[in-house]
């Protein structure tokens, strides 16, 4: 019994000391780990050293990743060969006022032919080009339009596609292809790179 008391008494100071000490060790280990992650860390160089150039990955499109572009199809269950249907592009600019934007669509061009592309935003007009195997759309306001809308899950474009054959197909909005990229341009000519979506279409 007495021994237990003595042991207990002698143990108490050690226990009090150990826990803070362990915490300090953990912090030191975390700090060292953070140093490891910093690949650019350098010590003062020696008298003669040679420094390797770090090869950089190819530059990606400059812009801030914000916002989204998605697709929706009206009457998706009732699409038949030869009968045009409408694909809607919806945009969310995450609070930014947009003066122009790009959308890139990819679909099986043996299954669908393009009927028309039009803007559904007041004061905006859209142009498209499909010469490179994908539908490259640019939509912008005119200089006379003063309003610069903020898109909030809003319809911004409509496309008319005409099915050529039956089957199940995917229509994709692309983030990037060749040198083209989906983007919003705001009133300060800042570029925002939205996430993109796709839609499945069943043609009877």
């Amino acid at each position, binding site marked *: 019994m007495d021994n237990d008391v003595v042991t207990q008494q002698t143990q108490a100071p050690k226990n009090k000391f150990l826990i803070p000490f362990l915490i300090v060790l953990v912090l030191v280990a975390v700090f060292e780990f953070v140093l490891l992650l910093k690949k650019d*860390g350098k010590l003062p160089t*020696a008298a*003669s050293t040679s420094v390797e150039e770090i090869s950089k990955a190819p530059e990606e499109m400059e812009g801030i990743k914000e916002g989204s572009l998605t697709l929706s199809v009206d009457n998706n269950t009732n699409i038949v060969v030869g009968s045009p249907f409408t694909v809607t592009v919806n945009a969310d600019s995450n609070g930014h006022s947009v003066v122009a934007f790009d959308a890139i669509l990819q679909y099986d061009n043996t299954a669908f032919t393009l009927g028309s592309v039009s803007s559904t935003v007041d004061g905006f007009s859209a142009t498209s080009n499909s010469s490179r195997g994908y539908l*490259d759309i640019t939509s912008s306001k005119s200089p006379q339009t003063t309003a610069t809308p903020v898109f909030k899950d809003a319809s911004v474009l409509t496309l008319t596609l005409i099915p050529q054959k039956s089957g199940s197909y995917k229509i994709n909005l692309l983030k990037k292809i060749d040198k083209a990229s989906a983007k919003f341009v705001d009133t300060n000519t800042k570029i925002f790179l939205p996430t993109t979506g796709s839609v499945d279409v069943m043609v009877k």
Partner: protein
Amino acid sequence: MKLKFKKSAFAPLLIILFLLITSAVTSYVVINQGTGGYKTRAGWGIPDLDCKLVGGKIPISCGGGKITGSFSTPTPKPKATPTPRPSCATPGVACCPGGNNGSQGIPPYCQGGLFCISGKCSRSNSTPTPTPRPNTCATKAPNSCGYMNRAGCPDGVVYCTGGSTCIDPATGKGPAEGKKGKCVDKPTITPTPTTKPYNPNPQPPVGGGTSSCEGGIWCDEAPTTYTGAAGEIVCGQRDTGGTCRDWQCNGSTGTWSYLGNACNPRTPAVPPTETPVGTGDVTLEFTLRLQGVTGIPKGSKTVPFKVKLKGSSDEDYVTGTLTAGSSGKWTGSTEFKGIPVGADTNYAVYVKVGKHFQKKVCVLNPTESSGGQYSCKDGVGLIPLTAGTNPLDFSGISQLVGDLPTESGEQNGRVDSYDKGFLLNNQRSTDPAKLQIGDLNFDGIIDTADWSLILQSLNVKYDDE
């Protein structure tokens, strides 16, 4: 008693574990900081890329891999034995480039109008930087000359100037090596022209001997040196006045001795260096028309452009600057070096102006019925290029605007929301930085005129590839 004992046993184990982890991490981070391994960094003051440990010292930073090599003590270098001073009056003798103080026992520069090239005194067609001879080493008739062991003079030799030449009165010829002479006015010598390739006129060997002499320099500055037979006289390198002088091969020493008689260079001349057949340097002089510009612009009168070629060879972009001229024509040039040239070459020329689409042109003097209509997208280039200047007048077609550069000058080869957005956001701007990007008609302001131009080019959309 039982449980507390177990707890207290774990704590030291944990401490030891953490210490092991942190020491391992620390040593890994410290040794492998930033630059990719041991092999790319030297040790602590040790310029040895293999990171050898010298003298038992551990380098504090040696990259991020394993230490190779082994502990060793550097071997002291043996002292260099000074070599005897050769004379730079003799062609082919080793010398040092200008700036050497002669501490190695070798003269710092060459005599006799020679230049120190690749460690040898020789004549050169290239543009050497001859080390000037100090004036204190020159004298004129009737003073003494030759080897006078004068301090500050190459090899201690004093030269003759003022049209005089250094002669040994005993022989009537140039003083032998290490000997004195006297400066005498140049005699009027009518050199005997040589009508055929220099035919050596063997003389009795000077001082006996049969050794040949290497490194003889021709007076006509042939690219190769000459090895003469004992006693042979050649028309060698020029004196300070530019006159070719005789040199004779000393058969006993194997070196060339200066005789000093005026002579004519040998004929025929050295054949020219052959150049590869069918390739050459090409300068393309462009005349272009930029969409929307019909005269000398009020705004910027220059714009960067770049050109590449495809066809007989594929050549990457070369940049240039276009300058505005009258009638809305812009001119500029680019150079391509060492490309196939000739009347049977065929090139397509790709022109990319700073705010414009790239245009592929396949024929000389292209034309179009309306702006931007010319197209050679799928065509084969038919433009021949010859060595030298090739004027390319492309003013019959328009370079279409629309591919605006970013602030860093990057273009993406298409007209898109960035290009339109920039113009929309900078309407009425006259800021120089903005004009460099968006003033498409170079009138000093971004306005609806620029907007109209970009609308016209929407149908084109992309660079010609």
